């Protein structure tokens, strides 16, 4: 156990905690919108960075490194999708979802679905799916935290995991979207500095990328192929397309990521946020996959491929720098965990317990229920992570495939397709989640050559279209939703400052006046 590394790790945690406390005290507690969406007052840079760091951290430092270590350059299919994921998400959903969620008065991404597709079943199914899948995602972050600390401190995995889980839980109970978003911003910068530092050190160690490629080719040339080790995925375009899709359009189905659209200060910030997220992705996203592949040369006998990046940092960087880089990695993992844990707790408390069990509960109960859910979820995930830790890459791919398949058509059609109705949304969520789940459970990707994400998204989109069209007569989309969609679609050739400085909290008043005008 290196004391310099531990010192930097401790200092970094204290620093992050301080930023969290300051952000929480400066805003976010003055209203319900403040708590859930930071008062819809988040700028484009923070929106982009919180979206990217929340989407990636734990997986990128462990799962992506592992994929590079075991499959070589095949991992670039995931990286390619990931680089464009942020801008696709912000372009397709950003502005419209931000406006529609405010007009409809929705504060959580699940509540938004119920307002757009009015039915308690939409909320119930969406909330149950989100809580269970995001719970699994939390599990992945816990394992990432435990493994990271194990390597840095030399403590046994179980002890390291207990420390990581305790810190994550304590941090999560501080809560508040504003605090999470602003810590994410800082962490995103540190993450990028950390990953670039390790990459430069590793490239120096292996004598540059060309020399590294020659050396890898001498070990196993198939590692340099885009089809994976031993060309295991050669010609499997269904698998490759799924790998591309999972992080390019998959984000649009993740409830904890689409919430970021709803918190933007201004719908028109989506465009700038897209630029920032792409710039960040260009530097950050490919690095972990490259590092994983280069680790084959530096650390050929690694027991656990998921520790490839940690091990590279520990072997190649001076102790003080290792401390900073490790602390950044740990903090990024914990930040993702606290966002998802908070989101899961909020959905369970607000969209399930309050909505269906006890709508009139007192605030003390509400606090206890929410905290209890977060605590129970944290403990349950901690126990599973301690005794049966599955591979992080498998959990992340599993949860993201099911989440993406279940919610992507519902979120996209909510703002783009006027005929998307409640039966369509229900059919799409049920079909998407079941297909993606069983596709992976029964290992149908091996049989069909189709990635679970691809199968899930195609079939859930089909279910949305067919069910919506068949039930147009019995379940027409109500007039006020159509008008709200018209309002969100509106774009005018107006001066930028005039558009940007609008008070978007007046959108519902404007909509009412327009509706009454048309009725008259």
């Amino acid at each position, binding site marked *: 156990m290196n004391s310099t590394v531990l010192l930097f790790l401790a200092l970094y945690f204290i620093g992050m905690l301080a930023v969290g406390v300051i952000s929480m005290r400066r805003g976010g*507690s003055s209203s319900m919108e403040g708590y859930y969406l930071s008062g819809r007052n988040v700028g484009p840079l923070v929106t982009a960075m919180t979206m990217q760091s929340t989407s990636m951290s734990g997986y990128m430092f462990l799962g992506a490194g592992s994929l590079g270590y075991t499959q070589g350059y095949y991992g670039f299919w995931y990286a390619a999708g990931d680089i464009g994921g942020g801008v696709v998400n912000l372009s397709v959903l950003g502005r419209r979802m931000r406006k529609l969620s405010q007009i409809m008065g929705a504060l959580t991404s699940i509540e938004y679905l119920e307002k757009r597709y009015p039915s308690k079943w939409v909320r119930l199914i969406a909330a149950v799916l989100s809580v269970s899948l995001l719970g699994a995602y939390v599990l992945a972050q816990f394992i990432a935290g435990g493994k990271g600390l194990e390597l840095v401190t030399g403590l046994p995995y179980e002890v390291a995991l207990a420390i990581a889980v305790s810190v994550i839980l304590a941090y999560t109970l501080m809560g508040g979207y504003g605090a999470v978003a602003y810590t994410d911003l800082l962490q995103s910068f540190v993450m990028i500095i950390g990953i670039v530092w390790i990459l430069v050190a590793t490239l120096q160690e292996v004598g540059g990328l060309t020399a590294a490629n020659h050396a890898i080719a001498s070990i196993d040339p198939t590692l340099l192929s885009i089809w994976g080790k031993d060309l295991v995925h050669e010609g499997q375009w269904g698998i490759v397309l799924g790998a591309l899709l999972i992080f390019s359009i998959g984000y649009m189905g993740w409830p904890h990521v689409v919430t970021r659209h709803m918190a933007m200060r201004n719908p028109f910030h989506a465009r700038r946020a897209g630029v920032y997220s792409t710039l960040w992705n260009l530097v950050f996203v490919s690095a972990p996959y490259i590092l994983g592949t280069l680790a084959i040369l530096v650390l050929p006998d690694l027991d656990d491929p998921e520790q490839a990046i940690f091990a590279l940092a520990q072997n190649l960087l001076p102790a003080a720098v290792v401390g900073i880089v490790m602390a950044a990695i740990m903090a990024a993992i914990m930040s993702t965990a606290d966002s998802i844990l908070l989101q899961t707790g909020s959905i369970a408390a607000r969209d399930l317990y309050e909505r269906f069990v006890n709508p009139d509960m007192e*605030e003390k109960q509400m606090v206890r229920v929410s905290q209890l859910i977060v605590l129970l979820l944290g403990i349950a995930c901690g126990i599973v992570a301690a005794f049966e830790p599955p591979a992080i890459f498998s959990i992340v791919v599993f949860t993201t495939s099911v989440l993406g398949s279940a919610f992507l058509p519902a979120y996209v059609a909510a703002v783009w397709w006027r005929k998307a109705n409640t039966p369509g949304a229900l059919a799409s969520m049920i079909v998407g989640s079941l297909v993606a789940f069983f596709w992976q459970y029964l290992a149908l990707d091996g049989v069909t050559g189709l990635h679970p994400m691809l199968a899930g998204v195609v079939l859930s989109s089909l279910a949305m279209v067919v069910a919506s069209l068949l039930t147009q007569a019995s379940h027409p989309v109500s007039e006020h939703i159509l008008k709200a969609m018209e309002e969100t679609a509106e774009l005018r050739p107006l001066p930028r400052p005039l558009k940007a400085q609008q008070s978007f909290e007046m959108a519902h008043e404007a909509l009412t006046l327009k509706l009454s005008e048309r009725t008259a």
Partner: protein
Amino acid sequence: MEASGSPVLDAADDEEAWLKARLPLDGLERRVAGIDAELAIDAVEPIGFPYLLCLYRWNTRRWGMSRQELMSCLVDRCQGVSTTVEGVEFGTPLGAATLPAPELETPPLERKARQHVMQVRRHRLKRRSASGLELMRCQTVRKPLWRVTAHHERHGELDLLIDALNGGYYLL
């Protein structure tokens, strides 16, 4: 109607109160010029937008001292969108104002306001303890808005909705 054991006054039967227009008609031209210097006002229509104003009270204890805190919540009577407000001031009605009709019933809106305030307090509760929430008053109020038809030199005619409480605007 009764909530939290407290009698509630619903002013629906009484004359509707108006929130104070901090941006009066004579300050409108300056405000519009502040939005864009090239905008020139053609017509102004005053609007009284219907809201339900609920005032809640609770007790807090800090350093052994007990004190009461108040919080108001406005809920849009047409769409049901809620927001907490501080420093509510009442003023005179805007003359010849258009008055959109309230479309939503009071009980669900009051429930929404209560939940909203509960959520706000729930977050604050992390730092201080408090007893139950008591509804002090619940009444329909009109929020003053200005609907301004203006002409922009380069972009033609524009309709703006201007919030008379804080001067915020939205393009119609």
